[in-house]
Structures are given as C-alpha cells and as structure tokens.
C-alpha cells in the first residue's frame, strides 16, 4: 500500500507497544498515542481500558479531534484520585512524550537548562517519576533529533534503566520501558545492559538517518527491519473511524 504515510506507520507502531497488555489501563498522552491506542483496542487488544480524558473509563471507541461518532459509553468512574490509585497499583501502561530521552530511557519533560533558572520551563515533573517506577512506560517522540535523543537529559523526570538499577532490586521491580516510538523508528531496551536498541526503521527512513539524528550510540543489529505497515482493516479504522478529521497529520514531521 504505497499511499500509507508516516503518521499512519507511527500509529501502528504505537498500537504495537500495547500488544499483549490485556486488561490494564492505558494512558496515551498526545494525539498519535490516542489514535494508536484506540487502534489497538479496535483490533488486537480489545480488553484494554482507556479514559475519555476527563474522568471516565470509556467502553467504546469514539473518534478523536471532535469528529462526529457514536455516543460515549461510560464503563466506570475514574477521576484523578482513582488514576493515582491505579498507577501505584500497577495495572497501567502510560505512553508519555519526552522533550529529551537518553540511551537508558531517562526522560525529561521538566525543563531545559539549569533547574534553578531554566532556559525553558516545560511541563514539570507531572506524573513521570511515579509512573516510571510503578508500572510500564512507553514514549512517543514526534521530533527525533540530536536535541531529543540526547547523551544526557538535563533533568530526569522519568527513570531510565541505569537509575533504577542503582536503586536496587526492590525499587526497580515494577520498572519497564516497553517501547520508544519516534517519527523515524521504533526502539526498545531488550539488550544486555538495557541501552536503547533500534528495533525497526519506518519506510523511507534509513538506519543512517536514525544514527545521524541521535546523540548517543544505539544498539543496532545487522539487519534492521522496516516498521510494519497498517493492514487494510487498520487503515480503514485510522482514516474513517478513529481519525476522520486527520489530526494525525498535524503532529509529526516526516
């Protein structure tokens, strides 16, 4: 299918990050993660739980970006206090953004520069420290570059593997970074020392493109496959059901 675009490839890669998760709460932050998670629920992971972004768990998949669709069915009440409980309980997988991410998966969404008077104050710590030490985490980085894939994060909000390892076995037992999906490729940490590995490159991207746009050395196997393309059914779901208004095209730079 030659007319599949980069955003659609990313959406499928995001959905794949949740494969096998079963009956847990997923919290996708950002437009493409929202679409990817709705795609996973609509296809291979129907038991996942997702909020409506307000205070309710929604039993059915409705379109993103204010597009017309079926009425939302609420299956349970989930205000912030309950989310915090779920989070510490561990039955959750979050996909956050990362203004910076390093080779061990340390993430920064707090600020750029010195903490006392930062060059740029960003979102703040938000839930990143608690998320990453309590349950699985993935990241979506729509702007892969040497400024986002960095040797060392300015501030650590979400924990990477080197930091949890230093905390010891007890504290690290719930930590897991499943996937990093960027606009260039897909990454995991399934390596001997848990440093980031290139799992696949998106169609139209070369391994060299990924290397040039990363400030640290990635683990790269001899044959890096291409990220998989959506099936006809997935493409139909993305284009006609989940994101008929095409908000996916606004989030990424190919």
């Amino acid at each position, binding site marked *: 299918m030659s007319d599949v675009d980069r955003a659609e490839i990313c959406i499928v890669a995001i959905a794949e990050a949740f494969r096998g998760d079963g009956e847990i709460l997923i919290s996708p932050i950002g437009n493409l993660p929202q679409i990817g998670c709705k795609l996973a629920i609509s296809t291979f992971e129907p038991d996942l739980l997702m909020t409506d972004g*307000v*205070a*309710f768990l929604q039993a059915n998949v409705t379109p993103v970006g204010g597009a017309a669709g079926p009425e939302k069915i609420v299956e349970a009440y989930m*205000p*912030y*206090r309950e989310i*915090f409980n779920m*989070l*510490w309980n561990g039955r959750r997988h979050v996909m956050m953004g990362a203004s910076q991410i390093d080779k061990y998966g340390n993430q920064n969404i*707090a*600020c750029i520069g010195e*903490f*006392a*008077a*930062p*060059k*740029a*104050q*960003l*979102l*703040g*710590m*938000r*839930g*990143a*420290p*608690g998320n*990453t*030490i*309590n349950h699985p985490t993935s990241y979506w980085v729509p702007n892969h570059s040497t400024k986002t894939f960095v040797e060392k994060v300015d*501030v*650590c*909000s*979400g*924990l990477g593997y080197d*930091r*949890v390892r*230093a*905390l*010891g076995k*007890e*504290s690290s037992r*719930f930590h897991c970074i499943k996937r990093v999906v960027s606009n260039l490729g897909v990454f995991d940490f399934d390596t001997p020392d848990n440093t980031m590995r290139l799992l696949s490159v998106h169609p139209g991207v070369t391994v060299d493109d990924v290397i040039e746009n990363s400030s640290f050395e990635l683990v790269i196997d001899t044959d890096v496959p291409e990220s998989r393309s959506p099936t006809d059914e997935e493409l139909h779901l993305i284009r006609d059901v989940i994101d008929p208004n095409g908000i996916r095209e606004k989030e990424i730079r190919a």
Partner: protein
Amino acid sequence: MDKRMTAAEVVAELSSGMTLGIGGWGSRRKPMALVREMLRSDLKDLTIVAYGGPEIGLLCRYGKVKKVIYGFVSLDSIPLEPNFRQARQSGSIEAVELDEGMLQWGLYAAALRLPFLPTRAGLGSDVMKYQPHLKTVKSPYEDGEELVAMPALELDAALIHMNRADERGNGQFLGPDFFFDDLFCMAAKRRFMSCEKIIRTEDFAKEGSFHTQRINRTMTDGVIETPNGAHFTECPSDYGRDEAFQSKYAKTAKDPDAWQKFKADYLDVSEDEYQQRIAR
C-alpha cells in the same frame, strides 16, 4: 453557625509569608475570585501549594510568590502556563517541583497529622536531587524496601471553589472531578470555600447525588458566594472554561503592553466590575 464572609474578609485573614494551598487542578475549578482579591492586596512572599493553573501565573506576575510547591502548572488547553514559565526562567521563584502523586501524599500526610507518608514515587528521579530536603525511609519489615518519606505539606490556609455550599460550610461539587480539595482543607489551619451559589442545606439533594456532597463543615471556616468566581477556569456543570479570555491572558506573558492593558481592564478593578467587563 453562619460562615458567610466576603473575599476581602478572607484576604484580611491572610498574611505575607504564609503557605497557601489552592484547590482545583490546572485551569479547572480554581477559586479565582479569591485569587483576584489577593492580587489587589499587599500580600507577598507567599508559598503556594497547588495542582497549578492560572492562579500561580497571576500571583507570580504580581510578584507575590516566594515559592511554589507543585507537580505541574498548566492552563490545560494551553499546556504551559506562560506567566509561570517567565517567573521560572527568570529564577525569581523557588520551585519545589514534585511528582503529582507526591503532592497528594504530602497533603494527605498533613491531613492525617502524620509527619510523612511513604511512597515509591520520586525515587531515583531528579526530584530528589533538586529537593534535598526530601529523605527516604527503609521499610521496617522483612522486605526492607527504601521509599521516599514524603513530608506533610502543612498549610496556613486553603482556598477552594465549589459549585454549591450552604452557609454552615458544607460544599458540593457538580463537575466530573472533585480533585483533591478535601485534602487541601484538611491540611490547612484556616479553610475558605468560595462557591457559585449558597443554597439551603435541604436543597443539596436537588442539585446532585449525595456522592457530590464531599465537603463537610468540619473542613471549612468561611464560605464566600462568588458567582462565576472560577472564571476564566472551568466550573462544570455551571460553566466551561472561557478559552477566548484565557488565550488573551496567555498572550500577556511576553508582551508588557498587553499585560498592562489586561491588568487595568480586568485586575485593577473590583470583582463586580470584572464580572461586568467579561460579560460585555
């Protein structure tokens, strides 16, 4: 007992240097009428504890803040609070930036009169590096796990905003999320609740299910009727966020002239005048 009072009377009970907790979340159900009254006062050197929204940006812009204790400061539809950002980037405020769950735990510890509550959240992150006052504690049981001992966040006063209240100090929220407003009240020495409307106690049941009657009168010292008092933040089911006004506010951060005009038009005036001007 009749706990009704005015916003001016609330602010008269506050003093410079106090630690104040502000309820709500981001740009949602914030006690903005009380905050506007604070802006018109000579209060300064405040420590603000909040799931932060525009109240933090405004108080910072007015130079009233010494320290902010927060997990985030956001306008929701505008992810970064621009006046707060300016204050952070100029280094003019002390930032105690915590994980959102740690903030809840600090308030809960204070509410329960405990010195701290243990949590895994924060361990290993730079929260611990930039907040060296935070200590860890070892589980006294066989597991021996090391945990953050999140210290109680004791408040001199708490300000919250409810949809409905009675004059005795019971409160009711009618939106989807109560947030952590009970914890702010229970963590504070003095507790002030503004509301959209003061009603008779027997009328709460007509407004919403009993699940919405979450503030009981042991949690409050003062009740202030401030119709549209959460504006421009949202206060469902009474009203949504005034996005156009919020956007106008956000544009003041980098534009001193726009700020002066915004301040003169909306903040250097009484609450009544404010409400009239935004209604135009």
